[in-house]
């Protein structure tokens, strides 16, 4: 449970959040060219097709880059500082913004293997996918 900005969901992105709430990570996949799409779109950014459907992914990935934030970028994050912000590259290809939890910030490295985990947000029914060392 953590205090965060609450993501403004839309009807078309709700499946992503519904999946997270049941402990599943999904991204869109293009029915025409099989490209994995994240963040969600109306058309495949690779081929333009509108045949996008939600598919579960392994939730495995590697850290592309990260930082440890010592100053809160927003007041709601003050109590979490220092925290680890990272870009994770999923095995299936897409990159996601996320946090690395379950390890000391000083142990985080680029290229480190990570696995999806889930965190509740205070005052909200939103469950947020985050990552921990695999």
């Amino acid at each position: 449970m953590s205090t965060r900005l609450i993501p403004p969901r839309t009807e078309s992105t709700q499946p992503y959040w519904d999946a997270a709430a049941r402990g599943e990570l999904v991204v869109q996949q293009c029915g025409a060219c099989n490209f994995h799409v994240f963040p969600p779109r109306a058309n495949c950014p690779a081929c333009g097709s509108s045949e996008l459907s939600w598919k579960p992914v392994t939730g495995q990935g590697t850290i592309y880059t990260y930082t440890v934030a010592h100053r809160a970028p927003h007041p709601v994050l003050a109590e979490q500082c220092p925290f680890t912000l990272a870009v994770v590259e999923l095995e299936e290809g897409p990159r996601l913004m996320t946090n690395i939890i379950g390890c000391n910030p000083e142990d985080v490295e680029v290229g480190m293997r990570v696995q999806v985990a889930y965190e509740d947000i205070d005052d909200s029914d939103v469950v947020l996918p985050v990552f921990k060392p695999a």
Partner: protein
Amino acid sequence: MSLRGAAAVVGVAELAPKRHTGDETILELLSGVAVDAVSDAGFAMADVDGLIVHPIGGLPGFVPATVAEFLGLQPTFAEVVDLGGATGAGMVWRAAAAIQAGQCNTCLCLTGTRRRRRPAHSPSTDQPEKRTPRSIRPSNDRSPQAEFDYPYGMIGANVGYAMLATRYTHEYGLTDKQRAKVAVDQRTNANANPKAIFHDQPLTIDDVLNSEIIAEPLHMLEIVMPAAGAAALVVTKADRVADADQPPAWLLGAGESVTHSSFAQAPALDATGVGIAARNAMQQAGVTPGDIGLASLYDCYTIMVLLTLEEAGFCKRGEAGSFVESHDLTYRGDFPLNTHGGQLSFGQAGMAGGMSHVTEAVRQIQGRAGDRQIAGLELAYAHGNGGIIAEQAGLVFGSAV
């Protein structure tokens, strides 16, 4: 089709960045620099028939019309550029393109921001502690970043550029000291620029390295300080250049690139829009990085200068760290960089911050840079960067066509 020689910058006005503005409105601030830039060129306001502005807080829309009416202009070309830190550079080539297309003859490019002092905390007005708002402002932000980035703390730019620095260091190696060298040499330049916000304050490598770490690996003194100010440029048609009071800074080439919005979707470090914009600008100008006598490179953070140096081709890929270590980046050095001090030491007045790299390139080409003038300068490169390496615009200026 090329912009080379279609237009030149002939007038410049720039306020010294300040921490806070007074009571003047943004329109009053812009009006002042607009009139000064036109007067610097030796033109009359009636000569201005093009206007380029940027989105302005407090003006919900119709920005060119609002600014034009305030200035008493009735332009035949009016536009808004919304490219973050690349806005200033993006304005200048659009002005030249509009002139080349015959839509106007003389175009004003206006940037600026005001910044009010926060009301001092008054313990006497003891109010119950307000709950921190849980949604980002503006609360109608429906960008994918609001949904997929902000909840994790990817808010503002510090953490984004910190992640850029981490990735760069992982791929190529870079030391804290190498990044600090950029800030220190630029401060030396600012010490020779009376308009720089840090004009009177020297800076050492140790000062940078001993400053607070904001987001690893970036220190406070590697991060630009927000300021208030404004800058205006007058771009005019080739056949009107001779009518101006000032020597021309000819636009020889321009390049632009937009690659992403969320930093999570940024291209690899060797495929950024920085390189696309810089290569296209220099190709259009018919010059190579080795020909350039002044690099005026967007420096919201030290890491951005290093990345731009190699992506624009001033040094080999992965060698930006050793390049800055082995060169004197000051106005009297062997590789003059951000001779105005850069935004890190001159000040970042909103979009006028990005424009400061353009105004400095113009002033240096015109031979009007005072104590920091580079002798015999013929070619300058100005680069703007918006978002987290998301939006790029590069300009090559020359003293002759």
